[in-house]
Structures are given as C-alpha cells and as structure tokens.
C-alpha cells in the first residue's frame, strides 16, 4: 500500500452517517403519505399479497402531520438521499474502492456462505475481515441495490406519466407502489440486522466514527 489509509475513509463515513437522518425522515414521511390510502393495488382490485390492507401505520412512525406535510418532507429530503447516493457511488468508482467493498459473486460467494454458516453456529472458524468478509460485501452491496430500486420506484410514483418507460419497467404504478413499500420493509430489516452486528462487533462502530487506525 503506497499511503497509510484508514479502514473507513472520510467519504464513507460522511455518506454513511448522512443516511441515518435521511432514511428516518424519508421512512416516516413515506408512512404519513401511506396513511392517506393504506391499501395496495388499484381501486376495486386490492392486492392479495399485501397483509395490511386498510391498516394505517402507527402515528409514532409518521412525520409531516397530514398528507401535504408528509409529501413536502418526502420530496424535499428525497433529493438529499439521491445526492448522497450519487456522491457515494462516484467515490466508490473514482477511488477504486468498489473492488474492496462490492460483492463480486465469483470471489465472494463462497466466503459469504462460510460466514453465514459461522454465524448460524454451523462452522467454528471466524470469517476473515479484510476489510469485509463475503457476507458483509453481500449485505452492503444488496442494500445499495435496494436503495437504488427505492429511488427508481419512488420516481415512478412521483411522475408515472412523464417517466412512463420507467413505470412500465416496474409493471405499472400500483406494482411500483408495492415495491416502494416492500423495499422500505427490507431496509428496516437490514437496519435491525446491521445494528445487531455492530453491537456484536463494537470496534466497527468506532471505525465508522473516527475512521479507525491507519494501516501502513
């Protein structure tokens, strides 16, 4: 390595921590918007796969007080989430870090399975961590893809006619709405798993705050 580098360089930490308030604001204002019509599927033909038809999200999980308020919060902060994502992906590509951080199936699939087996107590050896094991790469790449899909399905809901090519990719307006909510649930699930893993490996939290010790 030519330079001393930290395990978590500044741009990663910046983008990572910006996501915390942005995702919270977007999730909560999104649930406020959902409250106006807590059904999935077009009028007269609700989707059978959605288990919470007609159930509004709990009040503590909402932001914006009413539909117009929720929409304004959502459309104001959505742009910052997009900006943060563009900044992070540009940095991944520009710095070459994508090779170390993204999941490349041929390189990482075996290690991801071994690591999963270790956490499920099916294997004894601890996974290697340089800087990420295969399972971490899978999770972080997966959540990046989910975020991209969340933005794209959101754009369909925002402008279903002007972006009608994108709307057709999702199979229409109402399917895109189901995807948009489904991904929110997956992102919430990821966040829970992520926080549990950080609690099990507290050193990673320090690294995400300070950057960690420089390696020669």
């Amino acid at each position, binding site marked *: 390595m030519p330079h001393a580098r930290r395990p978590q360089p500044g741009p990663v930490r910046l983008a990572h921590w910006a996501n915390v308030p942005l995702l919270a604001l977007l999730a909560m204002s999104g649930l406020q918007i959902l409250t106006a019509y807590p059904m999935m599927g077009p009028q*007269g033909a609700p989707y059978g796969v959605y288990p919470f038809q007609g159930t509004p999200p709990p009040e503590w999980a909402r932001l914006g007080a009413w539909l117009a308020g929720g929409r304004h919060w959502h459309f104001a902060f959505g742009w910052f989430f997009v900006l943060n994502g563009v900044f992070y992906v540009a940095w991944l590509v520009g710095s070459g870090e994508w090779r170390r951080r993204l999941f490349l199936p041929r390189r990482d699939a075996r290690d991801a399975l071994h690591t999963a087996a270790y956490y499920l107590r099916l294997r004894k050896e601890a996974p290697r961590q340089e800087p990420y094991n295969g399972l971490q790469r899978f999770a972080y790449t997966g959540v990046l893809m989910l975020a991209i899909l969340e933005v794209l399905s959101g754009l369909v809901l925002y402008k279903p006619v*002007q972006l009608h090519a994108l709307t057709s990719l999702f199979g229409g307006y109402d399917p895109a709405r189901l995807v948009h909510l489904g991904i929110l649930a997956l992102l919430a699930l990821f966040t829970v798993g992520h926080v549990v893993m950080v609690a099990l490996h507290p050193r990673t939290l320090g690294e995400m705050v300070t950057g960690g010790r420089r390696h020669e």
Partner: protein
Amino acid sequence: MSDTRDRRLLTRRAWLLGTAAVTLGACDSSRPRQGFLGAMERFNQRFQSALFDPEQLAPEEPAEALTRPGAFPQYFISDRVPLAPAGWALQVGGRVARPGVLSLEELRRMPRTDYRIRHHCVEGWSAVASWHGVRVSELAKLVGADPRARFVEFRSFDAGYYSSWDGPSAFHPQTILAYGMNGEPLPPEHGAPLRLYSGVKLGYKMVKYLTAVNFLPEPTGGYWEDRGYEWFAGV
C-alpha cells in the same frame, strides 16, 4: 494534542447540531409552503415543469384495466352531490378575444377527444375510466385566448372549489373538458355536467362541476393548493 482534537470534535458536533436545528426549525408541516420545505417545493416545481414534456401522452389502458362500476371514488367538497343550476352554461373569460358563455350543446358540437387512462390521486390510489370531451386547447382557439395568458383557471359550483393550471399542462392534448365517462353522459357523482380531466395532473387539479374557465397572465391558487398542497402537481 488530544485537547485540540477534542475541541475540533466538539466544534464539529456543535456545527452538526446547529445545522440540524436550523433545518428542522425551517420545516413546519402545517405551513409547508414556507421555510426550508417551501424552498424545496419551489425547486420541485421548477423540476416538474422542466420534466414536463407536452408530447408525452398518458398511455391508453386496456379495457380489462377499467375500474369496476362503483369502485371509482366520487369526490366533492359540498355536503351533498352538487347539482347543476338550471340553465347551466360555461363562462369563458380572462384575456380572450371573444368572452362569453357556452352551452353543453355547443361544447358537444366541438371536436371530441376520447381516451381510457389511469387516474392518479394525491392520496396514492389509482383507477381507470374512459372519458370524452373537448380539449381545453380547442376552447382556447374558439375564444381567441391571448398567448400571453399562460395560465388557466377553472372554477366550479362545488362550494367554490377551483384550481389554476400552467398553460403547457392545460393545452396538453389529453387535457379536456369532459362531458362523458365510460361511454355515458358524465354522472353527477363525477362532476356533471362538465369537468376537467387530464392525463398529466393529480386528481385534485381536475376541477369538477365547472362553471368558468379563465385564461390569465398570472397563476391563481386552488382549493387544496391554498391549504398547502403542491400547485403544479404533475404526474
């Protein structure tokens, strides 16, 4: 050494907290048109107008996608279904060469536009119906609207419900004054005798129970727009 580092961390934390406080203080859900949310709304309005393509049509939906009878929501702000006053006629005014009134018969004699498209409500639901009527752009031609009148205001007899539109959306080929729905005359529950319909706006922009169309040089507001909903509201 660690002292300076602490101080630097502290300054950074103070700066972050300060930014958060200013940002959140400028976000008032009950007045979303002001402060930071208002500034972002103005940005979003410019973004929406720039994204708007006057050639982009809402796709025709197949007959199977039609919302089943009775499931297309009915909506009005009066307590009861508003009924057209006797001798109803549409008033056309503002910056036009030939202001006046048009009867339903006169509107029916104008070129007719038909389509079956998806309706997008601000609440998040969608529904499909077919609509027929006369394009707003045809009306503008008929009355000789001044090209400098870049906004169109639609008024109703539903307790003063109204909305104003940007010209490009109002003159879109799928923006019509509809007098028919699903092949039948427009029913009172859906805005009889005449309502605005379009493929390029959210439902609340499509004024029902029309009484007047005004071609204006300035935008006015709207029933929901005045209460904090977006004015542009394109889809």
